[in-house]
């Protein structure tokens, strides 16, 4: 009898500057799943710095694109996810989800990406004002992206939580360095693979696997990171990261819920998630002849 085909196993790597790379340290961590034990790259401080540099380098290009084009690229990312349905569902199943739970989370994640794709060219209209100043001036306030955003992805749900936290800053024109949860980093890697084939420019989204508790303080203290989403960090880690973030006056989003059910509800998608990583710029022009 002909033996069954031997499957090809995947090496799970970091996603930095549009490339899949091992940690510069060569370290990995073992992740036990239903389909066996996988070794996932364990990023270091140096990897954080490389990711921030890649993100900063990609920022001018990303924010310089039209909002319409950013919307199309994020929509394309959702398309790539949809076409990899089997892969995403398998990853969720291997993490212990039932078939029904896996399908539900996957579908919610794709729908969320589409929802935010549509916000790209609307957020500015919703957050802007034209201000009736008492004088001969034309005065407008409108949002601009803050820059590099560090995101601590929620531990659960691993796919929907990541999509719900990295897409809002991206749709506002920011670039992201995301830390995948150590308990379940495989969804994040699958998501990186979809992003890598979605026309998203290199470096716009960077995903690091490893121990977030080890990496987050370095992201928080990095002077070239403008904002931090630690909404789901536990209070001890959140406090340490937040205090470190103050040295460079970062914008910090903190103290949310750690309840996985939250991410399936309506409250988990809102333009406020985009607004948290936007700056308001006011411009004055004299009006006269």
């Amino acid at each position: 009898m002909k033996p069954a085909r031997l499957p090809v196993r995947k090496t799970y790597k970091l996603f930095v500057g549009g490339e899949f790379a091992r940690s510069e340290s060569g370290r990995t961590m073992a992740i036990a799943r239903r389909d066996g034990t996988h070794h996932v790259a364990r990023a270091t401080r140096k990897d954080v710095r490389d990711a921030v540099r890649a993100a900063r380098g990609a920022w001018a290009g990303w924010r310089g694109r039209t909002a319409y084009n950013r919307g199309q690229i994020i929509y394309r990312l959702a398309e790539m996810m949809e076409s990899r349905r089997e892969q995403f569902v398998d990853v969720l199943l291997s993490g212990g989800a039932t078939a029904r739970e896996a399908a539900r989370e996957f579908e919610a994640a794709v729908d969320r990406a589409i929802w935010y794709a549509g916000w790209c060219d609307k957020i500015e209209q919703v957050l802007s004002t034209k201000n009736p100043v008492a004088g001969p001036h034309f005065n407008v306030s409108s949002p601009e992206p803050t820059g590099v955003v560090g995101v601590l992805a929620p531990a659960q749900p691993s796919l929907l939580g990541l999509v719900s936290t990295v897409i809002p800053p991206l749709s506002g024109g920011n670039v992201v360095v995301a830390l995948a949860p150590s308990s379940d980093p495989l969804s994040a890697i699958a998501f990186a693979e979809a992003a890598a084939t979605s026309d998203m420019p290199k470096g716009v989204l960077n995903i690091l696997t490893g121990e977030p508790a080890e990496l987050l303080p370095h992201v928080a203290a990095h002077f070239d990171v403008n904002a931090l989403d630690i909404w789901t960090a536990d209070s001890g880690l959140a406090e340490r990261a937040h205090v470190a973030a103050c040295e460079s006056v970062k914008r910090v989003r903190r103290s949310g819920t750690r309840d996985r059910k939250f991410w399936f509800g309506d409250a988990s998608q809102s333009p406020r998630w985009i607004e948290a990583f936007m700056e308001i710029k006011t411009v004055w022009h004299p009006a006269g002849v």
Partner: protein
Amino acid sequence: MKTITRATKAELAKGWEYAPAPEAHDYIKLRSRYGLFIGGKWLAPHSRKYFATINPATEEKLADIALGDPEDVDRAVKAARHAYDRYWRRLAPAARAKYIYRIARAITERSRELAVLESMDGGKPIKESRDVDIPLAAAHFFYYAGWADKLDWAFPNAVPRPLGVAGQIIPWNFPVLMAAWKIAPAIACGNTVVLKPAETTPLTALLLAEIIEQADLPPGVVNILTGPGPTGSALVNHPALDKIAFTGSTEVGKIIAKACAKRNRHVTLELGGKAANIVFDDAAIDQAVEGIINGIFFNQGHVCCAGSRLLVQESVHEAVVEKLHRRMQSLRVGDPLDKNTDIGAINSKQQLKKIEELAASGDQDGCRRFQTECALPARGYWFRPTFFTGVALSHRIAQEEIFGPVLSVMTFRTPEEAVDKANNTRYGLSAGVWTDKGSKNFKITSQLRAGVVWANTFNKFDPTSPFGGYKESGFGREGGRHGLLPYLELT
């Protein structure tokens, strides 16, 4: 007709004597000593200690001011909490609005008194306190009064709620205006406040407390607590506050941010700046020179958004510097209460030392110093309007906030270089652009990383116009609809 040459014009300007035109201040009735305004009452400080506030133009004492200690902070926070629970959150929003309208009206009614006092206590020229600070303070209360009963319309699909009790710490450069920027949106949104004015300029905030008292606001909605830095520190670290709003230096802002991070407390910060004022060769140069003068010398340069770095396109550098130097000579430095005065007194001895030290670093770095040649009063704290040429990006006077009438002039060749240099700072509060080309104007303003950009103008403020910084200049906005957000929780 005889042509008047530039040289003759300069001679004429030198010989032009102005008769003194002092604003009367004999009707200002100062108490000899001021208590703390807590829970609607004037209380003696727990410490029984007072400190003097002086007139920086004469070095004479104006009054003794209560020194609030941690006990007083606790009393004030409790009064504010009580007022929040008992009165302010329960009050109909329309009634809240009417109280705030009363404050706005009373400020206008007592505007001359406030202006004179502001100039006496802080050293700023009377024409600025009279025409800028006080009218803007009144307008700020008037604007936010109207929001109090319209908050449901401000943010789509969100229910706005007040945060509770806010601690607010303000600087000495625009004492009563900063008090208005802090108090008006906070109480309009339904919060109660404990405000700490700056150590060197407490008087107008105390007059504002009188106005609030006379407006019959429920006791404890606004509490004014005077004292030096440690009083502010006690306020920031008080366990029962819901929010801190701070305007001041980036160094202190970081300390406050960390204290708030440890307590997981809401905070907004309006910090330092080192604004670039960019002049392109296609700008209307004479107007630009006026804008440069206003940008750096307004309020003696004690302005966080001052245009303290001048970036001039190389081809017009010589012309701009010459015009600037000539225009600067016509600035009148002296008695803040004189209506002709352009540049008043430096706010404090300590600030004067800081300015002198940083200006000296410009000399040491080999920059060329230009100053006005006018006579300075014998007493008080003064610094001549100054600019340096030959400044490099790495020089301290190009990187550090001087907070005085000192301008650093640099050059650029291309628009890209101008933007790079303008953004080469840890700050991001404001910026200016001078060009007559519309499309260039829009492009450059969109590339500058600053919260307020003035195009062909500078140092304009309005209650409807959001103000606040990028990067290390802080976060949160004051003014406009965006200025409500720091005092609301949206659910």
